[in-house]
């Protein structure tokens, strides 16, 4: 039985996913509020896994909360903090509690996070994690041992369409597809003409692609991303547009820009959907969708 998210991907509709970030601590109020707000609006919610290497409430626990709240969930799983035993065990657990969608990531460096002295693991990489999922689905583990009860996932991965140089990323992208990625959520894209070039290439593969959209909150934030976030390129005209927004209206402008981009992706059928990242401002996702005319 395909997952609800998988059904949405296969239906040909314009798919929308977004992110919800578990809290730093045990107070789940805001997190649960975001889930309640988004569960009927988006096709699935990604629960992040210690994003930016910052220790938080676990992704698995967050996924359980989404299921409890009646939403469709995508478990984000990085290779940074767990070796192959722990990753496989978490996949068994996820499968047993009804978490059926999975996003496989390498994970940011420990050094970028808030436990800079910690040991990083990277026993597997993202393509190997995808391969692992497919092996577990066949009722075996990575050691070749039989499982008493297999797993089943709609598994995906990420790509950075505006990476420089691009070809090494594309080689990895193809490995991920060969390893069984069914969907791809991209790093944020802002230059849609360039993204269309990527899609001209990516269309040859049997994989659904959701374009990453990060909400711009201010001109300095856009400049910060250009300087510090790999593969994110906010064109100057968008930065100027953000800078020209009246005082206190930057967020409104950011919503307008995100909405406009999603609208174009939708109308021109550039790819199969979007993955909206509102980083800490998840409550604005419905506004972005309204601005895009996809509610």
């Amino acid at each position, binding site marked *: 039985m395909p997952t609800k998210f998988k059904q949405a991907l296969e239906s040909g509709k314009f798919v929308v996913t977004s992110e919800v970030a578990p809290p730093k601590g045990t107070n789940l109020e805001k997190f649960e509020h975001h889930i309640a707000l988004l569960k009927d609006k988006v096709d699935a919610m990604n629960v992040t896994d210690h994003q930016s290497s910052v220790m938080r409430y676990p992704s698995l626990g967050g996924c359980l909360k989404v299921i409890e709240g009646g939403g469709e969930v995508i478990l984000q799983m990085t290779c*940074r903090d767990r070796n*192959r035993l722990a990753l496989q065990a978490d996949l068994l657990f996820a499968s047993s509690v009804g978490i059926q969608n999975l996003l496989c990531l*390498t*994970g*940011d*460096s420990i*050094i*970028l996070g808030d436990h800079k002295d910690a040991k*990083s693991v*990277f*026993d*597997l*990489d*993202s*393509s*190997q994690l995808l*391969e*692992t999922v497919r092996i577990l689905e066949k009722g075996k583990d*990575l050691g070749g041992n039989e499982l008493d009860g297999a797993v089943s996932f709609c598994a995906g991965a*990420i*790509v*950075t369409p505006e*990476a*420089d*140089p691009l*070809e*090494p*990323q594309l*080689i*990895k992208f*193809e*490995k991920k597809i*060969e*390893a069984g990625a069914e969907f791809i959520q991209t*790093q944020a894209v802002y230059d849609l003409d360039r993204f269309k070039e990527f899609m001209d290439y990516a269309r040859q593969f049997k994989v659904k692609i959701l374009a990453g959209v990060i909400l711009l909150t201010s001109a300095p934030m856009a400049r910060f991303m250009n300087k510090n976030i*790999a*593969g994110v390129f906010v064109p100057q005209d968008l930065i100027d547009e953000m800078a020209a927004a009246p005082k206190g209206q930057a967020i409104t402008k950011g919503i307008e820009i995100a909405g406009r981009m999603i609208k174009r992706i939708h109308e021109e059928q550039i790819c199969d959907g979007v993955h909206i990242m509102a980083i800490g401002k998840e409550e604005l996702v419905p506004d972005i969708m309204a601005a895009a005319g996809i509610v």
Partner: protein
Amino acid sequence: MIRSITQKKPEEEIERLLKGFNRIFIIGCGTCVTLTRTGGEPEVSAMQAELSEKGKMVTGQTVVPVACDNLTREFLSDFGEQINQADALLIMTCAFGVQTIARQLKKMVVPALDTLFIGKETAVGLFDEICTQCGTCIIGETGGICPVTNCHKGLVNGPCGGTNHGKCEIDVAKDCVWTLIYNRLQELGRLDSMRIYQKPRNHQGEPKPGKLKLPAA
């Protein structure tokens, strides 16, 4: 040439390690740490002055030719009395030297340096890590450049999403090894090699601690 690349420990740490030891004998090395300016003649002399200033009594000092060599014991025997008088040996060599000396002398050893990596001098005054001795070498498929050592995450199937303009996500001074591998394989017309899916690595190629015994000849 293979070099052990070291860095001086923070002053406070050396001070803490030497707490309670009043008479100190200092040992440097004429090989790698002389090259990296962390334990050659000038650094040993500077340390002597530093310790004296802090009220320690330096019973003697020397720079052995190759601290990690077993001949170090013989070389140090010339300093028998000065070493005997010392409460501890402050050793300004890499951890190979410190451990070699610790095995040879019945004295507390205090390392003054941290050993960062095993590498080589790739330009004047520039040192790069080359091999992490993982025991399962894959450089036959990566154009002779090691991603296990030179990718921050040790990734073997291509770059992560953090690479930017050919640099590593943790430090723009560090190259993204996957860009280097890509460029090299492209130059050699062997990009197909990069497309090969690498299975999860065997991290127990030689389970720690490494040990190898040759069969009798």
